[in-house]
């Protein structure tokens, strides 16, 4: 039964998306809303049923449904793998997607691309589901690419805006780098185990671990480490880890519901999901784990710092997403996959909430995104204010909120770990907590408190379809962690999906109850650091805002470094993009225009024309010329025959 339900979960958003795409224009908005929202609702309800069912029986469904293709004696399948990991991802994806569908009704109501937008987000939901529900690497890769394509289409949704087109190209190209790495990793695994099925690969993981790949005659690396690092390279692209993070802030050019759905809650967490799914492989390679940890921790700290200087409301939230993804990846690096996934789940709720709240502010201010032109919106947008507060508190890990449990658990795990790089990682994530609190409340204070701004008039609270998802997302942001933290992080919830050490070994802490965990947290520095960050934000942006007004601060080296985002964009632009363009230029001008066009294509035509021009002189039209020609021809043939030049006889 679970299998049939899962198929419906997978296909109903696809159906909704297709119907909205092809029939939406002729049947109108109501029809579009109906098909897509029903599609996703069905998905969500059935996902919840499956999750409950799985929770009860802890059964694992691993079933091939359809043979995609046969090559030699290899066959590639489309299949479903439903275990606790998949089930929780399904619930998160479909729930956030449903909220975003509802929210979109209000946010996009006068956009000419209304039905296009709905079909895109439904198709995205389908792609994401096929990514998480797959039981083999090939289907994973399909889903991986499909979400990339949908993300590309949605970032460039307003395709008449030049910045949107640049941003979607950037996202697509940067993701290609990661995808190349992913498919190379899959290739290594396939070449050794001869199978793309997860379970076959995992049971053959010892096999991979013992294989050595020789890069040169003297330099060999373990195939497992190479495969893991390459797979993680894919995750770095999709989950925007340094140094492939550059596309995510720019992706904010897309409509806000997309930022919430794709660039906060679901697609960008695909990398974290991949790490968890591949845990049986990663657990065998401590080098790969250290690599993951260091990349994650670096991302967590340094992208968070960038968020401090952004003035676009969505970009601040985007940098915060980058930083939180860094936390999740770092947790996976210390084998705390469950904590990482738990943070993924809570983050999906509160980050979607923050994005949608930001969208609500943007709509209320008639598409104004600059926080310097906002202020004092507290009374005008009460629901948005309250839900943003909840989201912000959850994000900084305020005790009791869902973000607190997840973040505290994963910081605990990083602190307790002793693999290479864990000291650096622990320091990074602790400073990261301060930074998170600082930029989150900088945004919050600047938008909702402070002096009222007179740039905008007749500001009123957004319509019901916008505020309802905010409220519905605020509820899990507060309470979801209380019942789930025990089983998911410390219990055996993920035992059938993830291979990780015993909880005590990871966290060095004996879990009793969520309340006990809450009390325990007061003995660690994390929450004090967070509160200190909030206090700093209060002083800097509310109490004494003129501290930041002096000029030396703006001209300092660090300010410029941060303002230019560590010069990553310039580096890529000047090194990779320019070289690529030069190569393209060369191929275009020399290879295409000169060689193919001018020499081969036009050259042939020109040469024929030229020869014809010379020959046509003999076509004089005078009969006596032709006669002469005939005589000469006759003479030649006669001579040929008489002198026996042909050598015949």
């Amino acid at each position, binding site marked *: 039964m679970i299998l049939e339900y899962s198929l419906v979960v997978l296909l109903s958003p696809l159906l909704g998306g297709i119907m909205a795409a092809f029939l939406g224009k002729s049947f109108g908005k109501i029809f579009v809303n109906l098909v897509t929202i029903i599609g996703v609702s069905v998905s969500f309800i059935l996902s919840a049923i499956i999750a409950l069912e799985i929770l009860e029986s802890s059964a694992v469904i691993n079933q091939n449904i359809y043979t995609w293709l046969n090559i030699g004696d290899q066959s590639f399948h489309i299949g479903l793998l439903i275990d606790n990991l998949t089930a929780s991802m399904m619930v998160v994806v479909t729930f956030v997607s449903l909220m975003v569908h509802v929210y979109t009704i209000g946010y996009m109501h006068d956009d000419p691309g209304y039905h296009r937008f709905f079909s895109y987000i439904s198709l995205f939901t389908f792609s994401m589901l096929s990514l998480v529900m797959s039981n083999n690497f090939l289907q994973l890769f399909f889903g991986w690419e499909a979400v990339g394509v949908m993300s590309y289409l949605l970032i460039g949704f307003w395709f008449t805006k030049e910045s949107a087109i640049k941003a979607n190209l950037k996202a697509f190209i940067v993701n290609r780098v990661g995808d190349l790495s992913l498919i190379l990793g899959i290739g290594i695994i396939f070449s050794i185990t001869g199978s793309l099925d997860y379970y076959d690969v995992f049971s053959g993981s010892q096999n991979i671990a013992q294989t050595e790949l020789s890069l040169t005659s003297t330099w060999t690396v373990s195939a497992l480490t190479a495969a893991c690092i390459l797979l993680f390279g894919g995750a770095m692209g999709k989950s925007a880890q340094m140094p492939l993070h550059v596309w995510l802030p720019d992706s904010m050019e897309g409509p806000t519901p997309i930022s919430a759905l794709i660039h906060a809650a679901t697609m960008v967490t695909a990398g974290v999901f991949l790490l968890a799914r591949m845990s049986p492989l990663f657990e065998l390679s401590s080098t790969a784990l250290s690599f993951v940890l260091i990349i994650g921790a670096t991302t967590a700290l340094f992208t968070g710092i960038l968020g401090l200087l952004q003035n676009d409301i969505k970009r601040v939230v985007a940098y915060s997403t980058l930083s939180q993804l860094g936390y999740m990846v770092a947790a996976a690096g210390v084998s705390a996959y469950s904590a990482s996934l738990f943070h993924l789940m809570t983050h999906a709720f509160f980050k979607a909430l923050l994005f949608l709240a930001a969208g609500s502010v943007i709509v209320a201010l008639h598409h104004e995104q600059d926080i310097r032109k906002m202020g004092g919106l507290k009374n005008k947008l009460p629901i948005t204010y309250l839900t943003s507060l909840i989201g912000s508190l959850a994000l900084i890990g305020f005790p009791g909120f869902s973000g607190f449990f997840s973040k505290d658990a994963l910081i605990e795990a990083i602190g307790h770990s002793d693999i290479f790089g864990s000291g650096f990682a622990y320091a990074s994530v602790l400073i990261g907590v301060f930074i998170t609190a600082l930029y989150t409340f900088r945004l919050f204070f600047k938008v909702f408190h402070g002096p009222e701004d007179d740039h905008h008039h007749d500001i009123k609270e957004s319509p019901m379809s916008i505020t309802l998802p905010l409220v519905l997302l605020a509820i899990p942001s507060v309470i979801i962690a209380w019942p789930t933290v025990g089983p998911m992080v410390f219990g055996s919830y993920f035992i059938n999906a993830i291979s990780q050490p015993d909880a005590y070994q990871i966290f060095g802490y004996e879990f009793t109850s969520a309340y006990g965990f809450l009390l325990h947290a007061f003995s660690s520095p994390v929450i004090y650091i967070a509160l200190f960050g909030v206090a700093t934000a209060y002083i800097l942006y509310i109490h004494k805002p003129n501290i930041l007004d002096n000029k030396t601060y703006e001209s300092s080296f660090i300010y410029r470094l941060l303002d230019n985002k560590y010069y990553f964009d310039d580096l890529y632009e000047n090194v990779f993009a320019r070289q690529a363009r030069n190569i393209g230029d060369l191929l275009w001008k020399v290879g295409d225009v000169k060689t193919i066009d001018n020499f081969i294509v036009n050259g042939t035509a020109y040469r024929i024309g030229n020869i014809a021009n010379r020959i046509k002189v003999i*076509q*004089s*039209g*005078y*009969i*006596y010329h*032709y*006669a*002469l020609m005939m*005589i000469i021809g006759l003479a030649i043939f006669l001579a040929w025959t008489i002198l026996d030049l042909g050598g015949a006889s």
Partner: protein
Amino acid sequence: MLTLQSYLTLSAIIFSIGITGIIINRKNIIIVMMCTELLLISVNFNFIAFSHFLQDLSGQVFVFFILTVAAAEAAIGLAILVALYRNKKSISVSELNKLRN
């Protein structure tokens, strides 16, 4: 005694005159037609010479055919010539390059 060779030589001379006439002539299309007749006559001459020396009458039969065809051809040629003159008011070969373009 006249030999076959002298007949063939005469025939070749007439043929050459015919060809030269066609090629060199720039003035008059009638001369072209006359030269064509010369060519045919030189061929007939060959036929008759061979027919006589080989004692085979079929060569002379061919000559009759050729004469008939030549007469018909001359009639058609003159008709074309008349039509051409009506249109162009000229029978000069050097002005007739309508085959071009």
